[in-house]
């Protein structure tokens, strides 16, 4: 029997960087074509713009940061970290008035973002709206509760707001916790999140994904897994929102299309699920696990 192995000079996998570790490329295959003018207007890469914004913010180039975060948010508005950083960038430009709206949105999309609450209250105070500043402070005090610990994150933030209202200065820098955002850190959060999802620890996975999102911005892979984890927690409406955000960033994102299709199977929308499968079969000319998985889901639903 003649057997031989050819050790071709194949391209080894040198690195599956986090742009690829279980992270899918933002869409693959397919071409657009035939879109309406409104759909072909300039679009920004929200992840790249978020990263630019972060770099500009850290370099204290707040004008550039504002520009970049606005571009990122023009694609995915429901990004709490991005909204907060936009607000913080306006504050960096001493424009507390403009900071109000993004800070309110940051709280809307993540009501537990302590820094957003703090900076909103301070900004209201700075623009001479004491009633609104007091109201924002009251929200923080309610969240902290009757036994609010002074050294808790909220407790410290409440102390900061009160100090500013009394004529002092805030000593904790804005956007603390974002300073060390990096692709490497983001990789770690993402990998841990994936492992936690595989273990069924969905709440813990979401915490890691939120940290990954701080590093990467509205990355479609992160958004997709945020959708997945929420779906497993039976928060279907929230899951759907995340899938839709992922597809707003990357319309051909295979994972988002697959998991959204699975959500539709769970909801009994077989027609919708099959449309997703047809889309995957079109995009995956050379085969993909996403199409195989969704096909399996649809088949199981039909036979059960």
């Amino acid at each position, binding site marked *: 029997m003649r057997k031989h*192995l050819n050790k071709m000079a194949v391209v080894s996998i040198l690195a599956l960087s986090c742009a690829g570790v279980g992270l899918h490329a933002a869409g693959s295959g397919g071409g657009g074509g035939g879109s309406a003018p409104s759909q072909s207007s300039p679009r920004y890469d929200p992840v790249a713009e978020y990263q630019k914004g972060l770099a500009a913010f850290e370099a204290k180039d707040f004008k550039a940061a504002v520009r970049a975060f606005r571009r990122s948010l023009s694609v995915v508005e429901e990004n709490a970290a991005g909204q907060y950083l936009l607000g913080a960038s306006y504050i960096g430009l001493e424009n507390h008035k403009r900071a109000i709206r993004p800070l309110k949105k940051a709280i809307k999309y993540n009501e537990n973002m302590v820094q957003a609450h703090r900076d909103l209250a301070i900004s209201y105070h700075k623009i001479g709206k004491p009633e609104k500043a007091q109201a924002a402070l009251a929200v923080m005090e309610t969240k902290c509760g009757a036994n609010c610990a002074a050294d808790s994150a909220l407790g410290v933030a409440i102390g900061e707001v009160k100090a500013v209202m009394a004529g002092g200065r805030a000593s904790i820098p804005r956007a603390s916790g974002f300073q060390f955002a990096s692709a490497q850190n983001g990789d770690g959060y993402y990998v841990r999140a994936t492992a936690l999802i*595989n273990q069924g620890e969905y709440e813990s996975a979401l915490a890691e994904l939120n940290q990954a999102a701080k590093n990467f911005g509205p990355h479609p892979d992160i958004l997709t897994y945020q959708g997945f984890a929420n779906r497993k927690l039976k928060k279907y409406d929230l899951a759907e929102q995340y899938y839709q955000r992922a597809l707003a960033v990357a319309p051909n994102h295979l994972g988002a299309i697959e998991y959204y299709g699975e959500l539709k199977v769970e909801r009994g929308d077989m027609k919708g699920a099959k449309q997703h499968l047809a889309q995957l079969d079109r995009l995956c*000319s050379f085969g993909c696990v996403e199409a195989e998985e969704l096909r399996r889901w649809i088949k199981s639903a039909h036979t059960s």
Partner: protein
Amino acid sequence: MGKDQRFRTGRLLFQTPLLLGGQAARAGISCESCHIAGTDNPHFMLPGMSGAGGTADVTNSFFSALRENGSFDPVAIPDLTKPGKVSHDGEALEKFIRDLIVEEFSGDEPAPDVIAALAFYIRGLRDADILPAKPLTLDHPLKQIDRAILSAKTEPKTPEGGAIYLLLASARHQLGLIHERYPGRKFAEQRLRNDIRRHGQELGRIQRRLDDPDYNHRSALLRWSKLFDGTKKKLRRAEGNSLYDPGKLKDALNGK
């Protein structure tokens, strides 16, 4: 089926990303990714999963919760052409392959003919001669596709498709690799890329009909091969403009 053919079938499955499940499949990782030509891969690096190059922590929930051991302990990727921890006697190797796919990588339960082909290939690695490395050309994936299609025609049909389904997946994967290396800057090249995609999609349609007992996949593959022969000629003519050309590849990697 002759022994050479069985060996090639096993190797094709070994190189198919769809064989493994979970995160590995989503990242396009096949057995070959870690074990190039059945050996090791000193360059393998998966952030968060590898320590030094050529290592992987496969007891991590990232791949499968079943093997999670609670510690970061990447191990060197073993060279399968050398004797290792798994006996090749009896059914031990078959069980090891099955457990690896299902438990280590969250893959689907492989069909018996798939395990048999993989086991034959891995057993054969120790007897195989390792030929010296040579530059990758278009010839390589085209031969892989031919072998995959031939094996798919020869393998006995089983319910759900089994090895045939994965062999066609292997052929599609190779088409994808060719597609990557024909960048398509010119109109004619774009048409060639579209042709490659269409061939991939047609193989997908054949795959999806494999569980129909009345479907004659051999005839379908014969027709497919005839059509693909025309594309092969175009691919060969355009090879000098593709990324199989070392100069073009170098320019592309340098952003030119």
